């Protein structure tokens, strides 16, 4: 039996290959995801462990929770001496961690989707950094850069004209060396600059402070022992870890940040690809089983049992599944590299260690690939067992209908209904993000399945509508193409359904992105009354000093430096704390006050007043006049009184307090966004230029944009993410294209004699190609239309549920038209090979095809 299976597959090479591709790509996505995230994990483990290689104990300030903007809050410098005094400490040193960019010949060296890190140099006995060129900084004004940054900035020891953008403006520095961190030459897309401790303190507002204290133990004292002793020697409010613990925690945190969304997101795309692949495998097996009715009848007459027929077909699927999964595993390496390249192109640099194939990756990839293939093939295989031996001798014997066929519409309808309910439950029930997404995903799968099953009833009307213009333009070839597309609606439906899934998700994503854009740009238009918006290139914070510098520009009337750190409120939980400067707030912002709120409230904010956003008011039950407490990551607490309520679900979510209140809470001074308002009558262009010029010299990291430019920039960023999502979904679309190719090739094989007849009576090769092309286009557009319809509905449901968050339902008509045209193009592309095969058939041989 196995030999027969293998022989059969070998005889149908093209078909087997086309079927396998669906699984290969899906498995490659799964394998690629694990390979990539493993690479990232290993890379970060490596970076942090190397960083702490010579460190036995790390002391940092204890925090209530992690904060991106304030990862390592400063602590007093004297902690260094207190640690050094602990018995068993051989050496202790302070280290300052900060954000700062190199400026070479006036040009900012940007990091890629990662921070621009500045570290102060520590004692060589604790320091894993080794100069591979020159030396590490020792004197004021000296810096060293990590190898990767040196390469990217094209600098080396002694390069003139180098400055470092710091919290106190750009500082002239002298590069005295290029270093590696142990054997690490690059930290993802981050730039890394090493300064002296004193410089770091001066340049980054850390006078008398340090970010970390690192210490090495004396001979005979273990890291754990030393950590215990240090812990005992220090008061509360400090976190004491061994070097290893510290490295592992940091790695875990950052890997959690990256992989926490990356792994499920990529796996979701892999799941989509496999789901599409399952449709194609189901369809291919259905078709091939139908084509082999006589063969099954023949083996039955020769005495094969139903079980043997079943095992034969399932065996075929198993072989395809195993081979395709193995190939997919290999292709996963390519996919991992491809995804990394995609992320790089989209501006998110990820660090990478060498590829490592963990057993978990192999097992999961193979398991998933083989299971999907088997599940998809089992239905057709069961139908094959129902072929009676008599079929062997019947001319044109056809497949007995499946037992469940007549229930199909009902099953499908039930699936759709359940799917919609599950989807809507995910959307509207206020579950957490993960659960909501899972529920939506499951609902979408059911809806796609159901619509895929139901779509056989939609194939005829859709084909008629789609075929009408083709028939009008192409006449009989179009008519025959349409007739071919509808002669087996179930097949066409399954083929189209594969494409429908990809198109549906692309549509969904496109509409959602359009909604995000509209809501954001709408909010900017409504709320921001300034003329310029300041921001860094990668959503980071920038030195508050930039604001002071701009205030000196004569055209500038007001500057608001917005900070929005994450805080915890009681009641309420995790919130954004927005900070504004009350005096100029009325002229810079236009709050949508609720109740009897007004701009007069700004003046009453002081250090204990807060304004709260409607969504928080609703979820926390806080009302005007109520009090609540705010806790920062550094553990500072304040009590605030609610002065009023406003609605702004996009920009000022959470609570809004005064700068003074934020300062009292020891919120770091670095703003994330600045809003500048000009003096009345100022020429906007000249004023913008004046501000940009002023800021470029001292704070080149700050980007100065008009509101229009800012909105454009935001839309550009959304588009970049959108492009990334499109690229990931493209894999599913490619798989469904292969599905169309496969179905067409099989159909052409079936219709060989018809093609012979058509050619004999005068159909040219060109007409033959066109016929196949039109059929393909009709099939693809059916998938496209259904996909767009489902995508629009899903997006509508989701945007409706998020309307409280300010997301609007905004149909990007042009994009949808482009998707439809792309479906046409997809149809044409998918038809290329099959059409060639059809046109190349020799009419005479075709006429005598069995």
């Amino acid at each position, binding site marked *: 039996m196995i030999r027969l299976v293998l022989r059969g597959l070998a005889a149908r090479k093209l078909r087997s290959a086309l079927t396998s591709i669906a699984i290969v790509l899906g498995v490659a996505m799964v394998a690629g995801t694990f390979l990539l995230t493993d690479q990232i994990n290993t890379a970060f483990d490596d970076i942090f462990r190397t960083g702490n290689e010579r460190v036995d104990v790390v002391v940092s300030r204890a925090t209530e929770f992690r904060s991106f903007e304030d990862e390592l809050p400063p602590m007093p410098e004297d902690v260094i001496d207190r640690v050094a005094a602990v018995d068993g400490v051989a050496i202790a040193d302070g280290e300052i961690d900060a954000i700062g960019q190199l400026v070479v010949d006036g040009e900012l060296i940007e990091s890629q989707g990662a921070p621009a890190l500045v570290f102060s140099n520590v004692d060589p006995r604790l320091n894993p950094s080794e100069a591979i060129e020159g030396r590490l900084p020792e004197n004021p004004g000296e810096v060293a850069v990590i190898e990767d940054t040196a390469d990217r900035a094209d600098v080396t020891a002694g390069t003139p004209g180098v400055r470092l953008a710091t919290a106190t403006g750009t500082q002239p520095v002298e590069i005295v060396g290029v270093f590696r961190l142990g054997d690490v030459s690059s930290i993802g897309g981050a730039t890394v600059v090493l300064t002296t401790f004193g410089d770091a303190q001066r340049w980054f507002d850390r006078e008398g402070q340090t970010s970390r204290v690192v210490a090495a133990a004396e001979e005979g004292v273990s890291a754990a022992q030393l950590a215990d002793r240090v812990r005992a020697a220090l008061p509360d409010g400090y976190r004491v870890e061994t070097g290893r613990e510290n490295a592992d925690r940091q790695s875990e945190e950052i890997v959690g940040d990256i992989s926490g969304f990356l792994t499920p997101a990529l796996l979701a795309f892999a799941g989509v690809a496999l789901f599409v692949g399952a449709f194609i495998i189901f369809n291919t097996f259905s078709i091939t089983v139908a084509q082999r009715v006589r063969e099954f009848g023949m083996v039955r007459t020769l005495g094969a049992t139903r079980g043997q027929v079943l095992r034969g077909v399932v065996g075929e699927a198993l072989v395809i599944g195993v081979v395709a999964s193995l190939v997919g595993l290999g292709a996963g390496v390519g996919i991992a590299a491809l995804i990394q390249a995609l992320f790089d192109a989209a501006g998110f640099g990820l660090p990478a260690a060498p590829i490592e194939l963990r057993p978990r990756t192999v097992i999961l990839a193979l398991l998933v690939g083989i299971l999907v293939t088997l599940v998809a093939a089992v239905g057709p295989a069961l139908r094959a067992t129902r072929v009676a031996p008599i079929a062997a001798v019947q001319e044109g014997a056809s497949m007995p209908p499946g037992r469940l066929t007549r229930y199909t519409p009902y099953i499908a309808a039930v699936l759709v209904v359940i799917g919609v309910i599950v989807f809507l439950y995910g959307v509207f029930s206020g579950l957490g993000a993960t659960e909501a997404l899972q529920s939506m995903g499951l609902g979408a799968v059911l809806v796609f399945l159901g619509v895929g099953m139901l779509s056989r009833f939609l194939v005829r009307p859709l084909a008629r509508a789609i075929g009408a213009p083709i028939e009008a333009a192409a006449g*009989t070839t179009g008519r025959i193409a349409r*007739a*071919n597309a509808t*002669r087996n609606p179930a097949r066409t439906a399954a083929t189209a359904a594969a494409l429908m899934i990809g198109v549906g998700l692309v549509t969904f994503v496109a509409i959602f992105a359009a909604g995000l854009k509209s809501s954001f740009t709408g909010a900017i238009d409504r709320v921001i009354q300034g003329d310029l918006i300041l921001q860094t290139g990668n959503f980071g914070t920038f030195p508050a000093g930039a604001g002071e510098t701009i205030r000196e520009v004569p055209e500038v009337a007001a500057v608001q430096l917005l900070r929005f750190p994450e805080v915890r409120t009681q009641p309420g939980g995790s919130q954004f704390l927005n900070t504004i400067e009350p005096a100029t707030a009325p002229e810079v912002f236009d709050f949508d006050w609720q109740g009897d709120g007004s701009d007069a409230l700004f003046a009453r904010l002081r250090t204990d007043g807060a304004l709260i956003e409607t969504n928080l008011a609703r979820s926390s039950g806080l009302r005007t006049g109520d009090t609540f407490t705010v806790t920062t990551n550094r553990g500072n607490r304040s009590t605030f009184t609610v002065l009023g309520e406003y609605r702004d679900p996009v920009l000022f979510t959470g609570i809004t307090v005064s700068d003074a209140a934020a300062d009292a809470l020891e919120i770091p001074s670095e703003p994330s966004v600045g809003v500048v308002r000009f003096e009345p009558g100022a020429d906007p262009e000249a004023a913008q230029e004046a501000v940009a010029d002023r800021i470029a010299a001292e704070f080149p990291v700050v980007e100065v944009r008009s509101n229009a430019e800012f909105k454009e920039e935001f839309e550009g960023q959304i588009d970049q993410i959108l492009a990334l999502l499109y690229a990931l979904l493209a894999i599913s679309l490619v798989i469904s294209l292969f599905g169309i190719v496969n179905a067409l090739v099989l159909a052409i094989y079936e219709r060989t004699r018809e093609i012979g007849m058509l*050619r*004999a009576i*005068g159909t*040219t090769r060109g*007409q033959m190609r066109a016929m196949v092309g039109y059929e393909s286009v009709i099939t693809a557009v059916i998938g496209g239309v259904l996909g767009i319809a489902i995508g629009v509905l899903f997006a509508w449901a989701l945007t409706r549920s998020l309307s409280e968050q300010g997301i609007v339902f905004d149909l990007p008509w042009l994009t949808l038209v482009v998707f439809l045209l792309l479906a046409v193009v997809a149809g044409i592309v998918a038809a290329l090979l099959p059409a060639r095969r059809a046109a190349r058939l020799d009419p005479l041989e075709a006429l005598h095809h069995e």
Partner: protein
Amino acid sequence: MTDETPRTPPDPQADGAMAVSARDVTKRYGAGGAAVDALRGVSVDFPRGQFAAVMGPSGSGKSTLMNVLAGLDRPTSGTVTIDGTEITGLKDKPLTLLRREKVGFVFQFFNLLPMLTAEENLELPLAIAGRKVDPEWERSLVDAVGLSDRRRHRPAELSGGEQQRVALARGLISRPAVLFADEPTGNLDSSTSGEMLRLLRRSVDEYGQTIVMVTHDGRAAAFADRVLFLRDGLIVEDHGHLDADEIYDVVKSLESA
């Protein structure tokens, strides 16, 4: 009537009167020792308005001859002329267009498109050519083949005889210079066979249609004006009309020869 020697071919000058002509046509399949000569120098002319039957045992080359004459297969050497146009050496496209214009087909297995109606099927050659249907001609054809009330049916809803009558109407719809019928009754029972042959006969008598029919059935060949016998790739007998018994005698004599 039973000539022992093949008729001398008509004057080549008179090609204008010929629907199809072949000159010294050979067809060799394969090469070297395994080569098979299906046709070994066949010259034959089919005048307009003639109903010719081509007979011969399987492997005699009768199907090959028909395929070569119809422009479905290319001779290894020699020339074929359809309605005054030499088709040998034509590229695929002009050859296809010529088939479209000048040649009609009736196949053993009907070869109707299952998803089209009877009417769409019979109009197919014109539709593919982008030519207009002559409604009068179509009506008279449909009436003649007795399918007036079956025009909207699909092949699956038609009997074998009806399907073949659709196929015949399809072959005639473009008024081809020659209609090639490849075992047109091979898949029909005897009564529907007779019907089909009478229709072929009528199309010759009433419309002056030229027909070349390949058959191994003597009763079918008896409807023809002329019966050719092939053996081993050569025309070995070329008769005028023969009745079924005479054909049977020729076949027997050829078998024993």
